[in-house]
Each structure stands twice: as structure tokens, then as C-alpha cells.
């Protein structure tokens, strides 16, 4: 992966996203009783799990993406673009 050695790896971004991600999961598990009882009310409260999923996917998705890049696991240099 010569390109990965020449390109700057997103270590800082990975750490920031990772910390936010851990904070989100810690909150979810530490406050699970309150979260479960609120989210289970249905109706307009249905928006809460949806918004939660988007927020988690943004931060944790960003973290996992950077995680593999930092490890050097990246797409093939000649991307297989399909025409």
C-alpha cells in the first residue's frame, strides 16, 4: 500500500469520532432503562429511535471508516468503477 504511506492517515479524525462513538454507546447502556421506556411509547416517540440510528451511524460510521484506513485497509488503487 504505497499510497497509504504517502497519504496522511486520518488518525485525529478517527480518535474524535471514536470518542464521540464511545460516549454515545456509554450513554445508551448507562441510561438504558430510561431510554427503553421513552422509546417504547410509540406514536411521535417513533422518531427517537430513527434519529438515534442516524446519529450513531454518522459518528460510528465515520469512526469505522477511518479505523480501516488507519490500519491500511483501503480500496484497490485502480477502483473498479462499473460502466
Amino acid at each position, binding site marked *: 500500500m504505497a499510497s497509504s504511506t504517502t497519504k496522511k492517515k486520518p488518525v485525529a479524525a478517527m480518535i474524535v469520532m471514536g470518542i464521540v462513538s464511545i460516549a454515545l454507546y456509554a450513554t445508551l447502556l448507562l441510561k438504558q432503562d430510561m431510554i427503553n421506556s421513552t422509546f*417504547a*411509547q410509540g406514536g411521535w416517540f417513533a422518531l427517537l*429511535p*430513527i434519529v438515534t440510528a442516524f446519529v450513531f451511524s454518522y459518528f460510528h*460510521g465515520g469512526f469505522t471508516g477511518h479505523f480501516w484506513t488507519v490500519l491500511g485497509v483501503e*480500496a484497490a488503487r485502480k477502483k473498479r468503477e*462499473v*460502466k
Partner: protein
Amino acid sequence: MHDIATSFINLDAITILYLFGVGFVGGLVSGFIGSGGAFVLTPGMMSLGVPGLMAVASNMCHKFPKALVGAMKRFKYGQVDVKLGVILGISAEAGVLYGAGIQEKIKATYGDAGSNLYVSVAFVVILATVGGFVLYDAWKTYRSGNANSEEKAGKLALWVQSINIPGTMVHFKALNARVSVLFTIPLGFATGMMAATIAVGGFVGVPSMIYVLGAPSLMASATELVIAFVMGLGGSLKYAMHGMVDIRLAMIILAGSLFGIQLGAIGTTYVKPFMIKVVMGLIMVIVLFSRGLMVPVYLSQLGVIDKLGDTTVKLLKNGSFAIMIFALLLGAFIVLRAMWQGKQAEKLQHASGALEHGEV
């Protein structure tokens, strides 16, 4: 909602690790073939004591954010046709609602065993025909020695692309052709019905994009992620309105699956396109045996055949679940192996290129 709130399971470290692990493997396969994982995750959650509907709802709530991340990743590789995905996704949403309605009717008339039998028979019939065909096609490509060449639309797809119905024609990037939405709507609908019935719409969605519409395998599997996002978002909202989503389960599975889906998506850039068909076909055919094992159990519960002993039922159930896990692990193994080989080949190519240019 009191009864639902009290049905939330207790989470311990082992349960969290189990959900994370299954999520990772499911995500890896989804990132590669566009779907998968749900057929193990839903029964997997139920085996932990999660009620069936809550397991389906929680699985769906992890699916749409996972599919979104996967679709965005593969969009960067030029593999996603957003327009095709959204159009198929909307009709798939209708299919989900219709499929769920059929499920409810069957459940009301024949009970849980009848509903389970319907799901298993649908699994066996669809996976045998579609999965068998996909695998056969992959084998044919491998044998022909054309595994590296660009995929061409088949006869059926060329016919579909040749039909011009004024006022319904849409140009799709994945097909590089105009196709009538009157063809895409039933395909999306069938994908949604499958998602509502066997939880894996992609087993119909991806092959139909390849064989009926003429999309290349890589584009079909990537576009399936858009369909999964649209379907999953609508489905999650519907279940959440009844308070059925256990957000803890959904987010823990998501934690593992986002690691997996990124890796699976990266994997598609290293492999020959027919590998998508190999992985999908293999998983479909193996899962078919898993569901087939359960058919006698449901037939016995319905009184169609003699009652099976408790030990036999337990054996069949465990065997069925083990085969499903094996299918997912095998898929993940093939993806990782193909990725590793692709990476090694790239390194070799790079080294020989450097030698030719006198850099070494």
C-alpha cells in the same frame, strides 16, 4: 405499551459481544453482496429471549443506518445507481406492507406454525430456484474463463431494455439504458415481499437487477443497499410507532456491522465481479437447507405429519441455526479470502511495474 416495555431483555457482556460479532459478520457480507445477516440476526435475537416482532423491528432499525453507510461507501467507488435504488426501494416499501399483511392473515388463520411453515416454504422455493441459478451462472462464468471480462446483459435483460412504453421510460446509470418503470415496480414489490417474508429482500432484489434489468453484479449489489435503506427506514418507523424497537439491540448490532460493512465494501474493489454471484449463490443454497430442516417441525405442529419428539425438534432447530451461521461465516470467509488475494495481486502488479520502470 407496558407489556412491550417489560419484554426488553437484560444485556450482559456475553450478549453484547455475541450481537456485536454477528453484526460484524452480517455487515461484512452485506457490504459485499448488498444484503444478508438478517436471517441469522433475527433468530439469533429470538434465541436470547427477544420476542419475534421486537427482533424483526430491532434488526430493521440496525439495517437502514448500516445500508446508508455501505451505500455511501460504495457510491465513492462509482458502484451505486441512486435513482434505480430509490425507485425500486419505494415499490419495495409497498411490497413490505403487502407481504406483512399476508403474514398476518396466515398467522390469524393457521397460527404460528402455519406462518413459520409459509416462511420456510417461501425460503426453500425461492432460494432453490434463484440461488441455484445464481450459483450456476457464477460457475458458468468461472468455467468459461471470462471471469475478468466486463459483464454483459443477458437475453431477458436485453428484451426488457428493448421495450418502449411511452411515458414510463427512465434512464438508469447502472443499466446504461432506458427501462420502463412498469418493469421495475413489480421487481421492487417482490423484493419488499421477500424482505417481509424471509427478511432478506436482496436475495430477490440483486438477482432481478442483474438478470431482469441487466445491471452489472457490483452495481446491483451496491444499489441493493439503497433499497435496503429505503425499506429499512420505512419499516423501522412503522415498528417504532408501536414501540417495538429495542434501540440497545439495534445499536449494538450496528456497532459490529459498521466495521463489517466498510470492510465488505472495500472488498468489492479487489474481486472479480462474478465473486458477488458466488457468495450470494452459496449463501442462498446453504440457507435453503437450514430452512428445509425446519419444515418437518412446522408440519408436525400443524398435525399434517405425526408429532415429532422433543429431542428431534430440538436437534432440527439447533441444526437449522448452525447451518445458517455456517452460511454467513462461509460468505465472510470467501469475501476476506478474495480480498486478501486481490490485495496480494495488486502488490505484485505494483512491484513488477516498479521493476519495469527501473525504480528498484
